[in-house]
């Protein structure tokens, strides 16, 4: 592991200043991802900023009924109102990692965690994401865990977060702070597709850091569900997951948002599936149409063809088991 300088900035301005002036600087929040990445030589920051003195752990309810969650709030968050008003967020958090990791991991770190692609995590394999321009061993290797949506010819790694999938279905915004001040990034723009720059893993600009996540107020008649399919009952990343948010008036679906996890380099909005529901009753026919539409545009390979059927089924189950 390369040595680094450890700083504990006293306020946000100092943190931003250091991040902006030193491009080798990285933020450490819970450390559950970064510590192993550094130990394995996959990331080699020259400077590490421990943000613990910045606060950023609060849950603040907004006048309009939305909520702002600090970037350093732990994933083991135990908040009755959050669980009551945003059960999707809590369900997604509980579906991820282990108790020990949820205790340490943070909201900001969760959405910024690196892919679990085995080729990225093993420095002996070529990886465009880790070392730009060196090639992608996964494209010629075992693609069983790789993405079936949004891949490019430089990278087909999967975004591993459950939380980000829930945030995507809730159309959350990521609050960031940087040299030019504060701004907010819609969650769907926060994770770029790999394209020909797979090493760019977020929309953060130089010197910017995540300060929080804001969830818009829950509409009336909203129901939601998170279904995750994985190799074992707990403590495993998704092979495929679906977060669904449905708003209804009477029996008619007014709004539908469906996000998929474990199948794309970012939380993947299944817009064809959403369109199959809006304006219809939520019944066996519309659910079947939505689950079929959810896989439109998939480009599986031989090893991960199974994910196409898994996506259909997690979407169908998430919609069938609402309420």
């Amino acid at each position, binding site marked *: 592991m390369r040595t680094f300088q450890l700083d504990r900035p006293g306020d946000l301005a100092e943190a931003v200043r250091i991040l902006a002036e030193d491009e080798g600087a990285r933020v450490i929040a819970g450390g559950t991802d970064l510590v192993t990445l550094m130990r394995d030589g996959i990331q080699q920051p020259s400077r590490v900023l421990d943000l613990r003195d910045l606060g950023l752990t609060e849950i603040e309810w907004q006048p309009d009924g939305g909520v702002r969650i600090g970037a350093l709030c732990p994933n*083991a968050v135990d908040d009755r109102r959050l669980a009551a008003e945003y059960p999707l967020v809590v369900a997604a958090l509980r579906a991820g990692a282990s108790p020990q990791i949820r205790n340490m991991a943070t909201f900001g770190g969760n959405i910024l965690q690196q892919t679990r692609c085995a080729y990225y995590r093993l420095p002996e394999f070529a990886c465009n994401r880790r070392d730009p321009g060196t090639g992608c061993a996964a494209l010629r290797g075992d693609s069983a865990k790789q993405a079936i949506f949004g891949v490019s010819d430089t990278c087909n790694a999967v975004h591993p977060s459950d939380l980000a999938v829930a945030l995507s279905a809730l159309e959350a915004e990521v609050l960031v702070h940087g040299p030019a001040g504060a701004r907010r990034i819609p969650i769907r723009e926060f994770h770029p597709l790999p394209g020909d720059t797979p090493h760019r893993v977020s929309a953060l600009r130089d010197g910017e850091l995540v300060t929080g996540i804001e969830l818009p107020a829950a509409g009336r008649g909203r129901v939601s569900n998170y279904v995750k399919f994985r190799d074992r009952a707990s403590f495993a990343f998704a092979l495929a997951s679906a977060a669904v948010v449905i708003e209804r008036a009477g029996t008619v679906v007014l709004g539908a948002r469906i996000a998929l996890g474990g199948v794309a380099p970012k939380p993947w909005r299944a817009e064809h599936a959403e369109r199959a529901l809006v304006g219809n009753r939520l019944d066996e026919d519309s659910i079947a149409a939505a689950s079929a539409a959810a896989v439109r545009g998939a480009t599986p390979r031989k090893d991960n063809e199974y994910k196409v059927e898994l996506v259909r089924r997690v979407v169908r189950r998430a919609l069938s088991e609402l309420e």
Partner: protein
Amino acid sequence: MRLTIQINGEQHQVDDVWAGESLLYVLRERLGLPGSKNACEQGECGSCTVYLDGTAVCACLVAAGQAQDREVVTVEGLAPGAGELHPVQEAFLAAGAVQCGFCTPGLVVAAHNLVRRNPEPSDAQIREELAGNLCRCTGYEKIMDAVRMAAANTQEAGA
């Protein structure tokens, strides 16, 4: 760096610590507390579970610099005194929830963390709470017995 850290109630200053080494390394190699085990170093197995400021974490995933000015309780700090065992440890012994023993310290801390917060855990809750602790010997049945026993004993002691 000079690491200032409270461990099992005692204040320590450790010199020449590198900020990037793990809390687990500090505990085992610098402070002679080998109870927390080093197995996977990936946060997968839970053998290094300790309390950091009162919450259970994997010590292998905590950089030493992150532990600065914090309070750690290791498996060595659970028993009330020398030569004594904590009721959770007693339960592991009584249930025979130990084979090779490598996972045991992490499981004891995780089980301790479970029963202090939830004195009547369901089997499903025990499984989920211990999901981050791997045992390759026992098949977990005796461990489940031990946690149920520890929870029952804790309740009895509290009643």
